[in-house]
Structure formats: C-alpha cells, structure tokens
C-alpha cells in the first residue's frame, strides 16, 4: 500500500511571549506513516501534540525542522491540500449560509463545476442526513447537525485523505454514533482517514492502526489488536500504560 501521509523527524517549537518561559517543544522528532485505505487513529492526552501535528500537515504551522508531506508533496505547498478533506474540532460555520450554500462555497474553492456540485451536494447532504435541513440557515442547526455539515464540507472534493480532529467531540451519543457510521462508510469506500479522538471505544471499533503520542513524542504505533496483545489489556489500559499514568491508591 502506498504511503499517503508522512512525517520525518518532525519538530515544532513555540517561543513563549513570556521571557522566562523560553521555548516549548510541541513535537519532537515525530515519524509517522499513514497508508492508503486505512483508518488511522491518532491518540494522546490533551497537550500531547495531536492538533499541532494536524496544523503542520495542513500548512497552518511551519515545522521547526523535519519534513511532512501529503501524497509526496511538501505540506507547505497549497496544492498538497487539493486531495484532502479536513474537519476541525468544534467549528461554528457561517451562520447566515445554508448547508447547501456552504458546500457550494467550498466546492468553488476546489474548482468544482456547477454540474459537479449539483450532482455531489445532494449526495453528501444525504450521507450526513441533512437533506431535510439543506435550505435552512446554519444558525438554526444543533451542534450535531453543524458537525455533520462540517463532515460534508470535508468531503466536497471527494478527498483521498480525510483529516478529522476529534470529530465526535461535544456530541451526544446519537450524534457520535452517526459520525462514527459515516467514518465507517468512508472506510468501506476505501478512503484514508486520519483522525484524533479521546473516545478510545470508537477508535478500537473503527481504526486499523493507531499511534499514541505523549509530550510531543511518538510512544507507540501499530495495529489495535497488536497493541492490546502487547499490553495484555484493552486499548484504554494500554493507552494509560503508554503515557505513564499511575493510578493514585487511596488509603
């Protein structure tokens, strides 16, 4: 299988505005490879460097050193983003637009023709179960509906790679289930999905491989069943062990 997403010795440093704080290392020598057609879970506690990694992959943050590429193209080139779809965590889309208008706007940026959009938008709205609300302004949507609209915008260009930053964050169980179903369907269609999540149950259910990072460093990468086997436990226990969590014993 070809490698779609690759980072090599990726390092990101942030300079603090406060003089005494100095430099904060967000990522330290991260090596990752995501292959075509797999669902890859990117795990880590808050502040581990997951969002920073995604920000580098999307060209929002320049790496201090090392390399990152999508489809073999350096992430600093805008063309590297032509074949990806991105869903950020908790985004409040343009409230005055309808879901259909939102998709048309993003479709235009990808250079889709009117005919392509006429064909693709109803299909996407159906996929994310928003066809009944497609003419309503986004301001009237619930959080779950907004997240599904976000998922539709991430799919407007029929991407080969989807980057999802905590796609089920802040959703109720029903909303989570719907988003999970969509990811599952995309997996069945052969799409590559790279997503971060704190929901280890869903990661276990849908991911082919996972990576766990902690304090900017890659700790473990491999198939879910291999990681579970290596730690003789479920993914949650394995995760806690990898990040060095020690449960406090009560006297």
């Amino acid at each position: 299988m070809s490698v779609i997403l690759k980072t090599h010795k990726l390092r990101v440093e942030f300079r603090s505005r406060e003089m005494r704080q100095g430099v904060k290392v967000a990522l330290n020598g991260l090596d990752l490879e995501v292959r075509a057609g797999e669902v890859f879970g990117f795990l880590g506690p808050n502040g581990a460097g997951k969002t920073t990694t995604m920000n580098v992959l999307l060209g929002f943050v320049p790496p201090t050193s090392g390399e990152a590429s999508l489809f073999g193209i350096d992430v600093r080139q805008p063309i590297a983003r032509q074949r990806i779809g991105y869903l950020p965590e908790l985004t409040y889309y343009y409230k005055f637009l309808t879901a259909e208008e939102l998709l048309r706007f993003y479709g235009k940026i990808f250079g889709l023709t009117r005919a392509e959009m006429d064909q693709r938008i109803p299909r996407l709205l159906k996929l994310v179960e928003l066809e009944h609300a497609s003419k309503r302004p986004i301001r009237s949507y619930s959080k779950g509906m907004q997240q599904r609209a976000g998922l539709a915008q991430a799919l407007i260009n029929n991407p080969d790679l989807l980057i999802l930053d905590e796609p089920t964050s802040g959703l109720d169980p029903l909303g989570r289930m719907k988003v999970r179903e969509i990811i599952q369907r995309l997996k069945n269609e052969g799409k590559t999905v790279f997503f971060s999540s704190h929901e280890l149950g869903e990661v276990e259910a849908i991911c082919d491989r996972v990576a766990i990072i902690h304090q900017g460093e890659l700790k473990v990468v491999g198939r879910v069943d291999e990681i579970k086997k290596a730690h003789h436990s479920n993914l949650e226990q394995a995760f806690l062990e990898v990040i060095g969590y020690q449960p406090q014993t009560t006297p």
Partner: protein
Amino acid sequence: MKNIFAVAGVVIKELYRRKDFYVLFIVTILICLVMASVNIFNDSKIARYLKEICLLLVWISSLVIAVTTTARQIPAERENRTLLPLLAKPITRMQLVFGKFLGCWVACGLTLLCFYIFFGALSATREHQWPVLNYFQAGVMQWFMLGIVVAMSLLGSLVFAAPSSNSTICFIVIGGILFVGRHLDQVATSMHEPLRAVVNALYYIVPHLEFYDLRDLIIHNWPLIEWKYILLALLYATAYIATFLLGACLVFRRKPVN
C-alpha cells in the same frame, strides 16, 4: 481569481442577510422623509438643505457599514474557527485577504447604489431633475474612498485584537483625516523643526479622503468635474488600496491561524 470571487460572494451574502444595512437604510429614509415633509420658514432653497442632510447621512451610513463590516471579517473567521477548514483548502492567505476586500468593497458599492437611488428620487421630487452624471461622479468617488477605508480596516483587523477596538481606531483616523488632514500643511508652518517636518510628512503620507467628497457638486448643482481629475483621484485611491492590502497580506502571512 475563482477563490477570490468565492470568498467575496460569501461576504456579500453576509451583508444582505444581516440587519446592519437595513437599519441604517431605513433610519436614513425616515429622517430624510420627515425632513422633506417639513417646509421651514417657507424657504425656496430648502431642497439644498434637504440634499445636504441626506448626503451627510449617506456618508455616515456608508462609512459605518464599511468599517464595521470589514473589521469583523477575519476576526470572526478566527473566533468561529472557520478559518481552519477554509485555509485547509487550496486557497492562499493572499487570496483570502483579496476576497475579503473585494466582498466588502462590492457590498459597500451596492449599499451606496441603494442610497443614491433613494437620494436621487428624493431630490427629483423637489427639483424635478436627474443629474445622473453628477451622481455618477460623486458615487464613484465615494466608492473609491470607501475602498481605501475597507483596505485600511482590513489591515487594522489583522493588527488589533478585537473588532471593536479596530472599528474605534478606524473611525478616529477617518474622522481625523476628513476634518484635520487637509489643514496639516498649514498647521506645520506654525511649528518648529523637527515637528514641522513630521507634520509635513504626515500631510503627504495620509490618504486625503476629503478629495472624494463631492457633495457640494450635487447640493449646489455645480457643473461636472473634468474626467481626467476624477481618473487621477481614482488612481490615487488605487495606490492606497494596494498599499494597505499589501500590508494586510504581509501581516496575515505571519499570523497564527488559531
């Protein structure tokens, strides 16, 4: 260009789906209609005062719309996090800045058109004439002046943290230029060096927005200004717009997205 037009299209949609424009337009209409219905002291030249008040309201309203609409564009994208999915697409930051500018500027042009149509209709009821070319000259000049204001506010929105502080600073600067800018060279003559040089430099650096105020042309039914001077003024505005947009692109290029 398709990216610039796509971003501009969203900005224009935002303007006509928000209440700001409608509120200002209705307030302007109401004030002007009330003024038009009153004939104070049986003055035969009352139409001039009416036109003056109406144009003043058009100027104030268009400036308010230009500054407030532009000042919130990029900060709102950051706050609502829509900047992230947008910049994750094949669009450059420069295209985003140009799209925002174009959208705000065209939106200001459309509001200006509505205001001038109303003004023309109101004026025609009193003076029974349609000096279309005069309106065109005044409208185009005002539109380019708004172009400078929009570009300046866009740059401000990337420099200052909050849209409210940016709007306040922009209003103060615009007010300062309109009321004091033209007198800076005279003020400089009464000063000693090096302050004189500083004020003189300021006189040549600031965009002279007062050049674009052709209200008297319409109020007093003066003849048209020669088109070559209009063209020169438009080129002067274009230079300032380009400078502010370049500044905005440079600032935005280095700005973190979240």
